[in-house]
């Protein structure tokens, strides 16, 4: 008699890798081939995971069409099946997969749009966190301000793309053909900031210098070091903007090395 472990590994291989011979040997025929019975579960599984991907990548879905999306998802699911039952977190590797997926090569901006959509999906599901009250910063003496390391809101994400993927994303989801036609794919790279606001998730286009400053601040670099890397930015105004938009939820002081 096979162990529970053996049975489950065999079914897993059948559903994901489509290697069903061992699993079929454990299953009663009962009027329908075991392979056909396993296929019912495989279909449900692929269907549920494709829906999870479609919910995270609605613009990619529209750009390539349902049939193409389903075909790509099926291959992706086989190579990168989910590692946990928390499906909001499933599909982080889909943009990289699309970048290397030759049937999609003619849509050069597709993986960039996917990267933006993943940042938006992450922002949508990120945990709630209260914004840092600026008055709390004054607890730190002025001499310490350069050592402040901000904790970013968990919904914050940064995207850099070679194409205007934010404009493409908006036009595709609005099904706005005129806006889509007006997009100049040669207009150069974009630097984007993604965040969840009270009203929903949002993507903002910012300058390259603002983007670099913000990514430094949000990746654990102390304030003075980030400022040193962004001369002439008008950092006071930019920082005030980050505070007003609730992009930080806390801070600590860097300890001397």
């Amino acid at each position, binding site marked *: 008699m096979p162990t529970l472990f053996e049975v489950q590994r065999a079914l897993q291989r059948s559903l994901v890798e489509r290697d069903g011979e061992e699993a079929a040997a*454990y*299953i009663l025929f009962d009027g329908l081939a075991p392979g056909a019975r396993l296929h019912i579960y495989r279909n449900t599984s692929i269907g549920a995971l494709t829906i999870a991907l479609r919910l995270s990548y609605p613009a990619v879905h529209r750009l390539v069409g349902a049939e193409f999306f389903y075909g790509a998802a099926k291959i992706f699911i086989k190579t990168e099946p*989910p590692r946990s039952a928390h499906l909001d977190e499933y599909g982080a590797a889909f943009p990289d997969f699309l970048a290397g997926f030759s049937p999609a090569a003619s849509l050069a901006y597709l993986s960039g749009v996917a990267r933006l959509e993943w940042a938006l999906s992450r922002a949508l599901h990120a945990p709630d966190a209260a914004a840092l009250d600026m008055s709390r910063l004054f607890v730190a003496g002025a001499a310490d301000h350069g050592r402040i390391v901000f904790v970013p809101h968990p919904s914050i994400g940064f995207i850099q793309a070679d194409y205007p993927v934010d404009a493409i994303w908006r036009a595709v989801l609005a099904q706005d053909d005129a806006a889509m036609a007006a997009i100049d794919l040669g207009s150069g790279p974009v630097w984007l900031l993604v965040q969840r606001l009270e009203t929903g998730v949002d993507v903002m286009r910012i300058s390259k210098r603002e983007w670099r400053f913000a990514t430094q601040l949000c990746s654990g670099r102390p304030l003075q070091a980030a400022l040193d890397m962004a001369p002439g930015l008008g950092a006071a105004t930019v920082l005030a903007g980050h505070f007003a938009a609730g992009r930080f939820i806390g801070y600590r002081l860097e300890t001397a090395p």
Partner: protein
Amino acid sequence: MRAGRCAERAERGSILAGAGVGLRFRHHQAVIDSKPPLPWFEVHTENYMGGGAALRDLDAIRRDYAISLHGVGLSLGSAEGLDPDHLARILRVAERVEPALVSEHLSWSISGGVYLADLLPLPLTEEALATVCRHVDQTQNFLRRQILVENPSSYLRFRHSMIPEWEFLAALAVRTGCAILCDVNNIYVSAANHGWQASEYLAALPPSAIGEIHLAGHSVRQLDGGLTLRIDDHGSRVIAGVWQLYSDALSRFGPVATLIEWDTNVPPLEILLDEAARANSFLESARSGFAHADAV
């Protein structure tokens, strides 16, 4: 005696023995705006593990309604143990939502670290029973509360299964003290697919352990060779045969909190409320001690 048991059940779950509906994102706003006359809603635990609008809506809805958390991802039957991160996520949602009921499935979904996104059937053996019992104990200890375990719909059986599913479920309830979420549609579907007697299934379940009933629609697939397979897709109204079986279940169990599930091609909220009203008419009959099939 029946009234005593029901009072105990209502107190235990603080969900009245009335009909609720499964809450889906597309109905959040309609529920908040129109406050439909229902005692409770059930949500999928996995849909509220993040923050943002979904959780904010649920906070608003739970001010007016009892909430039941129904998980689909814990994989109680996994030979390789429970995912501690997932268990922790469930606890976090439960602490936030303060649900009246917490339920999961008699199935498995994870093997080799891969989540299969479906509720797979177990070989019904002593080994599997011991595994599920261990995981239900672990879950109840971790969440510090009783959980309900639901019977699945299934489309295959294992050659080496030794225990009838109804006996497996009853033994699980006895050994762990968990309650049973009796999905009447799943009994109907599995009985049709495997040639079981639905009445025998119901008769084997201990009435005192039944904490909730699920009702849903399913589809019928004609296969080559004249074989018919029933698929539990939660995409239509409850069929007459399932209402009949529900009536039988209430005759045996007494009035039990009942849920209308609808997950694919989700219709306007009014349709769900209409199904819940129908379930309520059966519950009324059961309450007055005259549960009978004539209402169908």
